[in-house]
């Protein structure tokens, strides 16, 4: 198993005539935060549902901490926390009772559940709601509780399937912050998270696994993806705005591949393999167009779109 806490080997799932997962194999490195990407219908959720024993694979294997989920789901899911899609809770229970229920199922004592409950509710910023019934909670609050219950029993693996899906921007930011804190607090945690939100993945993850049509199309470190992008898109803000003269001046700068208007800004495609970003900024500042801000574009998005296009 190469010591990977999550290992997928030749996994297939066929629904009727539709192949959702097609001979998929990859491993998730220990202590990594892996982003699991792909367009709608790529097989991400199906793979994660197989990993969490919600559905059975047609063939192939999925291992959690070396145990095949098909062979022994109870053993495989021991020490694993999950948030699959937007789960619902038993509305008649409070977060404290829900944690006691789940804690009891995973074999925790009442004392350790009580102790961890306070700590986790604090972490997910839900302490003051500990004894309110879950039926009264908003979607964002329920999702924070979902993340909280995934932390019960100090799991070594956390599986997240679009944890910010359907939340408003504030809710998304809160979940992202919680995930960052979880990651910072515990370095011995392996997390796999599927998401459609690329900047969220770029912000949180250090590895990327990408699938399309149920097949693997990328499995790499985030840093290497950034470097491999070669051409980077950047956004320039200037006092003069995107005038014809400014665009013409910018397009003459060394290693700039193309320039276009982007609202009140100028979008630049720059060959980072040939020139440093600092030199670009210095060159732009010397143009006399009042350049005051240069922000990096989304390298993951570029790579994502390229790979999806290629794998069609």
């Amino acid at each position, binding site marked *: 198993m190469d010591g990977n806490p999550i290992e997928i080997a030749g996994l297939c799932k066929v629904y009727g005539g539709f192949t959702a997962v097609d001979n998929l194999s990859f491993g998730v490195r220990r202590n990594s935060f892996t982003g699991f990407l792909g367009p709608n219908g790529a097989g991400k959720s199906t793979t994660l*549902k197989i990993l*969490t*024993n*919600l*559905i*059975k694979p047609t063939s192939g294997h999925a291992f959690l901490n070396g145990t095949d989920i098909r062979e022994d*789901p*109870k*053993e*495989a*899911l*021991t020490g*694993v926390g*999950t948030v*699959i*899609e*937007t*789960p*619902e*809770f*038993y509305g*008649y*229970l409070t977060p404290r*009772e829900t944690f006691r*229920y*789940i804690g*009891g*199922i*995973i*074999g925790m004592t009442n004392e350790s559940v009580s102790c961890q409950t306070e700590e986790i509710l604090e972490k997910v910023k839900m302490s003051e709601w500990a004894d309110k019934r879950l039926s009264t909670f908003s979607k964002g609050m329920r999702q924070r509780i*979902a993340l909280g*219950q995934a932390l019960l029993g100090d799991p070594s693996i956390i*599986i997240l399937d679009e944890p910010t899906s359907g939340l408003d921007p504030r809710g998304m930011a809160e979940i992202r912050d919680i995930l960052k804190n979880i990651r910072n607090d515990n370095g011995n945690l392996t997390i796999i998270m599927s998401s459609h939100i690329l900047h969220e993945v770029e912000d949180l993850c250090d590895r990327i696994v990408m699938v399309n049509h149920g097949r693997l199309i990328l499995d790499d470190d985030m840093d290497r993806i950034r470097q491999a992008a070669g051409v980077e898109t950047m956004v320039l803000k200037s006092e003069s705005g995107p005038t014809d003269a400014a665009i013409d001046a910018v397009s003459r700068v060394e290693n700039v591949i193309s320039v276009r208007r982007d609202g009140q800004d100028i979008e630049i495609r720059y060959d980072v393999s040939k020139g440093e970003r600092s030199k670009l900024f210095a060159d732009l500042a010397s143009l006399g167009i009042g350049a005051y801000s240069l922000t990096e574009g989304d390298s993951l998005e570029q790579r994502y779109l390229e790979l999806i296009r290629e794998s069609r």
Partner: protein
Amino acid sequence: MDVADDLRQIIQVAKYEVMKFMRSRKFLIYSALTAAVVLLITFLPYVLGGNLGDTAGEAFSTYVGFVSLLVLLGATLFASYTLVSEFEERTALILFTRPIKRVTIFAGKFLSCFVLVGAIMVAYYLVAFLAALAATGSLITSFLPSMAMCLAYVFATTGVAMLVSSLFKKGGTAAVVTFLAVLLVVPIVSSAASGAGVDTWFMLDQASTAISNSVPEYVEMTNGVLESMGEAMGVDMSGMMVQAADCVRSGSVMVAWGAVATLASLALFTRREF
């Protein structure tokens, strides 16, 4: 070790299922209905100038006549929802992704439904026993056989309701189908089979008559009423006369219905994908 852990998890699931049920509106409705039945049977005869009965058996007979309907209502309200709701309300995404076998979840849920409806029915029997004692000053001896038959019926209807629950996508549909299947479909099949000359002792509706027919005074009273009706109308009612229950056979039939339905439900539930 694994078996002990499974048993611990079954108790944990059952405990929280019962807690969920007891906080639900369904439980409130069910308790209120059962209490209303008890109150009406106990006090209405006195309000109307009569009494509950001359003997303990007579008084008790009125109560047992409503048992099968109350049991079916309990199974419909709780057991027919318990499995389907995990999928319909997406709570399975929390529970099923934990280190717990599907069979353990199933056993915990079955246990909770059986215990809840069973406990309410035991309370119902105790009230009936005490009311009969208070009204007539004598003890009813056929109390235990009837209660045992009632619990066998709770087992059977819970199994059937869980089988229906594992087949449907909506809890509401599962509840309606459970209620109609036990109240209408099974008796129609029984009646058709009986009309064709088949002895229908193995049918659930026939076996469940043991709940009341295990009380001799009930059999006596019912046959007395039928006889009087027959005489008044000039019709021979002997074919409609009820017979004292064969509790072993009827109990076995109800347990068999429960066991087969439960096993079929378990097979469907463990294979069901989210």
